């Protein structure tokens, strides 16, 4: 699924990273614990999180994650958005809570899961 379809499925708003809108995503990871995100190996992953701090962007950087969706209407401050922009990571925000956001993406076809070991 392309990032632009994720944007529409989640009724989200894009804060940075228009150039990533045509990237394809096959798997998603919904977590507020960044170490759990890092235990999850998969390519073309979208990260959904309710945690808003610079370490979310760092974690995405280390994991080569190119799209982060902040849930429950969380909106990172400009400094964090800027950090994502510098690293080529797209950032969206949606008003949906975690469970609903994950459910919508799953129903829309993002069904791959990560490998733990």
């Amino acid at each position, binding site marked *: 699924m392309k990032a632009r379809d994720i944007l529409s499925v989640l009724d989200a708003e894009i804060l940075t990273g228009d150039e990533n809108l045509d990237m394809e995503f096959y798997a998603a990871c919904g977590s507020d614990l960044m*170490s759990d995100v890092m235990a999850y190996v998969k390519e073309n992953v979208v990260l959904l999180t309710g945690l808003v701090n610079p370490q979310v962007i*760092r974690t995405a*950087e*280390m994991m080569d994650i190119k799209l982060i969706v902040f849930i429950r209407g969380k909106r990172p401050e400009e400094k964090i958005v800027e950090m994502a922009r510098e690293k080529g990571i797209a950032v969206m925000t949606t008003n949906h809570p975690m469970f609903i956001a994950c459910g919508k993406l799953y129903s829309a076809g993002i069904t791959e899961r990560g490998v733990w070991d």
Partner: protein
Amino acid sequence: MTYGIIRKDFVIPANDFTIAGEASSCVKKMLIQLGVDPQKVKKTAISMYEAEINAVIHANGGIAEVEIDRNKILIRIKDDGPGIPDLELAMQEGYTTAPDSIREMGFGAGMGLPNMRRYADKLEIRTEVGKGTIVEITVFLTDN
């Protein structure tokens, strides 16, 4: 890749969680520039980042020494922190001594050391209570 041995040291600043990961970010960029295989870059970046976060959380920061030659990437994270009293316990997924304030930042869930073990090709930890900890992460670039 055509280079000899590259050495670089980084300071991991104390108590500044917002900039934690800066050294790992630099190393990741360096490895990409050197043309290292993307999977090996990712393995190195994640394990170093976890070690860096640990040094900030538990040990008032420390230093990171990075050595890259044609066979391997070696990352040594040294701190003068409290040390790890029971290393075997600390290696278990979910075991943590981090305070709630760290969990609110998305870390401290007891996955740091297990993630380092998961991604590093070799992980060596030397620790002494009251003196500090040295974490050595190796990622091999060649098969032999």
